[in-house]
């Protein structure tokens, strides 16, 4: 296996590729598909649940795609009629009432049968019970995925869940979004400006002791936030900043170890001749920084901005500790509070809220995945 395919070797640097037989290639492709599915499953499941009505969520009969039944459509129809403010349609109300009762009775019967089935040890009896369950289930009118009614019903569920989250009285998600954006934007601005200046000092200015201090910068990367959580709280408490946004964005204006590291790596790659030519023309360090380094470093600055934005958007512990009023909550903290107040029963609403905070990150990832992954990967090449 290893010698025979040497002729069709893949590109250099890719050591193991090319030396694979057709069969093992397919085995790997199948393995990869399973891996992908496993890693995406939680995200897919959040999305799928966020599109379902409550009775399908709190059910032991789960499907990936939501189902739309005749009852669901009737409910949505009745709701629409109600919203238009027209006098109630007595026939419609009666029809809905009957169907609700019928469905409820059927579902009760199913769950009783299921309970019986799960306790029985007799295989034959269990099969018979399963048959009865399947038969009862088939009585429910479920629309096919290709029918117009299905998509109309799905749209109805989606609207109900997402509008339900935005308009809920238990949380003010539009306000949380505003708070998250204010903090993230201030923090991004601070991080990009300060880290660029500091990284310039560590790469383009030559001074004694710079490598030692840079080592110290890298060492701070090893100190996780929770170790500092109590001390920082006390610090901000003493200067009266607890309950304001400042503890969440102010530290960004003093640089972050990872951003400094990333930018320094990039600045080191800029040819020194450019600086020297500019200096000979009478340019100061500030001039070189502003006219040469920054314009050339735009891609690296964008990665720093992106990573800082995602960090702020995702941050939970910071807001948990430093904020103390509901009107200051960020999306991450607000989502947590929304769930913990409910104790987690309306899972479709909680998943819709979760999807809403995941989607912006997902979009950023799809747009910039290459630079994001490369940015993260540089961490390992320190030595």
């Amino acid at each position, binding site marked *: 296996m*290893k010698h025979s395919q040497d002729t069709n070797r893949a590109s250099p640097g890719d050591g193991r590729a090319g030396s694979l037989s057709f069969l093992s290639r397919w085995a790997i492709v199948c393995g990869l598909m399973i891996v992908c599915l496993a890693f995406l499953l939680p995200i897919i499941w959040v999305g799928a649940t966020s599109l379902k009505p409550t009775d399908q969520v709190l059910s032991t009969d789960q499907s990936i795609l939501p189902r739309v039944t005749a009852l669901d459509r009737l409910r949505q129809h009745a709701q629409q009629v109600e919203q238009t403010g027209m006098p109630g349609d007595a026939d419609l109300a009666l029809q809905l009432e009957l169907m609700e009762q019928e469905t409820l009775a059927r579902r009760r019967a199913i769950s009783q049968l299921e309970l019986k089935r799960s306790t029985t040890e007799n295989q034959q009896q269990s099969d018979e019970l399963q048959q009865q369950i399947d038969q009862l289930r088939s009585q429910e009118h479920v629309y096919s995925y290709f029918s117009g009614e299905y998509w109309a019903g799905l749209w109805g569920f989606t609207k109900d869940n997402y509008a339900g989250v935005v308009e809920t009285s238990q949380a003010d998600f539009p306000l949380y979004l505003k708070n998250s954006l204010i903090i993230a934007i201030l923090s991004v601005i601070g991080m990009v400006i300060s880290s660029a200046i500091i990284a310039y000092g560590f790469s383009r200015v030559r001074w004694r002791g710079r490598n030692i201090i840079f080592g110290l910068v890298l060492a701070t990367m090893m100190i996780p936030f929770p170790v500092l959580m109590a001390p920082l709280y006390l610090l901000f408490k003493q200067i009266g900043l607890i309950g304001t946004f400042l503890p969440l964005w102010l530290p960004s204006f003093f640089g972050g170890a990872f951003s400094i590291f990333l930018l320094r790596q990039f600045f080191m790659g800029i040819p020194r001749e450019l600086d020297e030519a500019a200096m000979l023309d009478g340019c100061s360090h500030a001039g070189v920084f502003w006219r040469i380094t920054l314009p050339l470093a735009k891609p690296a600055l964008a990665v720093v901005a992106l990573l800082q934005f995602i960090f702020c958007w995702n941050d939970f512990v910071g807001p948990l500790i430093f904020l103390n009023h509901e009107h200051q909550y960020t999306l991450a903290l607000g989502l947590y509070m929304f769930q913990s107040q409910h104790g987690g029963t309306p899972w479709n609403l*909680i998943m819709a809220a979760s999807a809403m905070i995941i989607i912006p990150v*997902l979009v950023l990832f799809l747009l910039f995945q290459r630079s994001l992954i490369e940015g993260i990967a540089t961490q390992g090449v320190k030595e």
Partner: protein
Amino acid sequence: MNTALRSKSSDTTLTGLLWIAPWIIGFVIFLAVPVGMSLYYSLTEYSLLEPPAYIGVENYVELAGDARFWRSIINTAIYAFFSVVLGTFLAIGLAVLLNQKLPAIGLARSCVFLPTLVPLVAASLGWMWLYNDEFGLFNVILRAMGLPTPDWLGAEGWAMASLIIMGLWYVGGAMVIYLAALRDVPQALYDASAIDGVSPMRRFWHVTLPMISPAVLFNVVMGIIWSIQVFAVPYIMTKGGPDDATLFYTMYLYDNAFVFGRMGYASAMAWIQFLAIVILTGGMFLLARKFVHYRAA
């Protein structure tokens, strides 16, 4: 090296320090001062309502006899051990798998990496829903297959395992670093081993692994640090329960500081954690001298 040019463009230390001044100020205000102050607070009784009162090493003595403190250390050690060991194997395995030249391999890499960007709160809630005892996807599938359905987060014997499994979902960050390291392995080494007729397993052990060992060291150190401070995910998913089965060190620290209002006690815990991380990291680097192979630059 052109020494004349070098000395001409060399700067004073003052210029350098001025450029990095923002970092120095931030380091002092947001790191050195709080850490130093907390060393003092760790020697006091400090309830936030009254000014700190000096009590010597009493907090540390109390910690030594605090059963929940020890429980949290044991839980954290178990979590860290399994997370780092399983995470390292999984990340290296995935990196090797994803280093193949195959169509749409980039898509597969993205799938593994994507979870690391998902907000922790949303991810925790998503996993809570997957783990749900009655209606969660895992138990729905297990039930349909006629298998026993554990109460993933609610059973004392399962909660820790469930959190470790969920943590493995975040393996993408380490995987990306291994992938970059794998790509840096010189092709010449593989060619040489192919000529010598070395089997793929031996080649991995004797060529690939030594060459990526700096990345292994980095990821293992970071993995240990991150699992020692694990907080947000268990705080959201289990609240330390059931019956302290998932009470982690940072969670107990948080409770002492922000729930029980015992800042002095919490500061003592923070200092112990800080020292533990310094010692473990230092120890790993010392150990690494024997095993990590650095190429001459």
